[in-house]
């Protein structure tokens, strides 16, 4: 193995809150308790890179976006999905300028709406939201604007009528923008955003390590549920953000909307995500999950009862 550090990969570590259970597990020594030595957590910008980093890591274990995992497996990468990560999009929303007269998603007809990038979660969410509200994509003008920051600035400068955001970022720009609609108010927010993956080869050779990692994450999450403020503080430190108040309220909110899975897979929310991928044209047909998933590394009580 070329890598010196025994690292695992968590997509958008340092940015998105997928990483909270890992941050807590790290800080509280849950990895050690499960006999795995994780020296660090690798971040990655974007799904494709996350999967590639996972494959190259000392421990090829990662929490990556479901879409990237499925596409990688389709492309022939020898990966298996071994557990769930984050299974909700409840904190996502579209925002408009503070003084905007728009009231809800129906008012968007004929307007310019930004999302991040074609094929992204925000892309599928807006298409699904429009569909759920009985509108067609042709009624609006959809533009990819780049990351969430670019979305907010585009809205702020009036270049765009509505832009994509999440709770965390919205909370920091309350004086500039206001929510137009929350995704959870328009759609069923249960969509599998991230899953845990590893290579079949590694899992067979080191089942204990994989199981230990899954366990440690589960314990981290449990701890976070019990001590949300402390979990927020730990995450804020790991993410280099001094705005502890912001993190505390956000973690509480995410716990409230049942953001994280403890590892158990939920095929309904996975299929919901696949539906989104089909709408954006990234995937055709149903996914035959047994070919992608191996639940044997999950603790017995989390395995689906079939």
């Amino acid at each position, binding site marked *: *193995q*070329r*890598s*010196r*550090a025994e*690292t695992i*990969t968590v997509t*958008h*570590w*340092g*940015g*998105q809150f997928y990483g909270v259970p890992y941050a807590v597990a790290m800080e509280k020594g849950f990895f050690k308790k499960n006999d795995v030595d994780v020296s*660090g*957590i*690798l*971040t*990655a*910008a974007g799904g494709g*890179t996350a999967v*590639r*980093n996972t*494959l*190259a*890591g*000392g421990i090829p274990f990662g929490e990556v976006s479901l879409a990237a995992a499925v596409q990688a497996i389709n492309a022939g990468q020898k990966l298996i999905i071994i557990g769930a990560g984050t299974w909700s999009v409840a904190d996502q929303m579209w925002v408009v300028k503070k003084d905007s007269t728009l009231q809800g998603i129906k008012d968007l007809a004929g307007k310019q709406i930004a999302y991040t990038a074609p094929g992204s979660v925000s892309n599928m969410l807006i298409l699904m939201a429009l569909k759920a509200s009985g509108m067609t994509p042709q009624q609006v003008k959809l533009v990819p604007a780049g*990351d*969430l*920051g670019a979305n*907010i*600035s585009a809205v*702020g*400068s009036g270049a765009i009528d509505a832009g994509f955001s999440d709770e*965390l*970022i919205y909370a*920091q*720009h309350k*004086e*500039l923008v206001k929510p137009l609609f929350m995704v959870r108010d328009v759609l069923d927010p249960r969509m599998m955003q991230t899953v845990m993956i590893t290579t079949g080869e590694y899992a067979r050779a080191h089942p204990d390590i994989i199981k230990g990692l899954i366990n440690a994450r589960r314990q981290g999450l449990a701890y976070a549920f019990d001590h949300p403020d402390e979990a927020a503080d730990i995450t804020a430190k790991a*993410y*280099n*953000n*001094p*705005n502890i108040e912001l993190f505390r309220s956000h973690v509480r909110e995410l716990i409230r909307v049942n953001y994280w899975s403890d590892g158990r897979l939920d095929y309904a929310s996975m299929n919901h995500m696949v539906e989104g991928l089909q709408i954006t044209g990234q995937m055709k047909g149903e996914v035959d999950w047994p070919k992608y998933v191996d639940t044997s590394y999950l603790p017995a009580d989390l395995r689906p009862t079939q």
Partner: protein
Amino acid sequence: MSELSFDHKQKLIPRRHFRAFDAVVLTLLMLTFWQVIGSWTQGVAVSPPLPTLVYLGDLLATPMFWDHAAATLEAFLLAFVLSALIGLVLGLIFGIRRFTGEVAEPILAGFYTIPKVTLYPVVLLLFGLGMSAKVAFGVMHGLVPMTLFTLGAVRNLPPVLIRTARVLRLSPGRTMRWVLVPACLPDIVNGLRISFSLSLLGVLIGEMFSSQRGLGFLLVNGMAQHNVPLSTAVVTVIVVMAIAANTLMLRIGKRFAQRADTVAG
């Protein structure tokens, strides 16, 4: 050389005084520009100077920041030294051995235009995760400009100097060391300056692709959380560092070039 005014030398003394003044004026101008942009976009894209500097002050006080800075610095220094040395030698070789230059230059320039993301899987394959991959990214960015600047300089050298070196039967190494490098120094310094900045950028990009430490990681942090003061502060650090290094290199380059530049008036 200042050819439009031939009395360059006489102006030199007052110019020293100007310099500090001008630097202050320019800094103020840039701060104003920054402030205008910051307040115009209401801190959404760039945080204005004052909050950024306050934030930066706090950041600098944390050991965490120095950890990250040290990680970046280590990879960057390695990448820069490699880019500079390899680029210099390649540029010189391609410049003198015109044939190799004609063969290699288009390949090099072509390689350079490849979007670096697409090379990420290859870099992972060759260098794995971590330090060496970061350095590889740095070199991928910094090497080519250094080579091109050096090569251009050698091509534009007065041929009689190379003929002199040949007549003195200098070995290729010595020709480089004693004739080509000093004769091309101004261009080499320019190449170094660009290469410096780009290998830094390359390392940062490498850190954004895969990292757990480093300023690039902090930057991703700031961007992903939309922590605008953080990303602006990190960029400020990078820019200040680059400007300082660039000023230094210019000074050194000038010290050498001045002698040659005291051109007849």
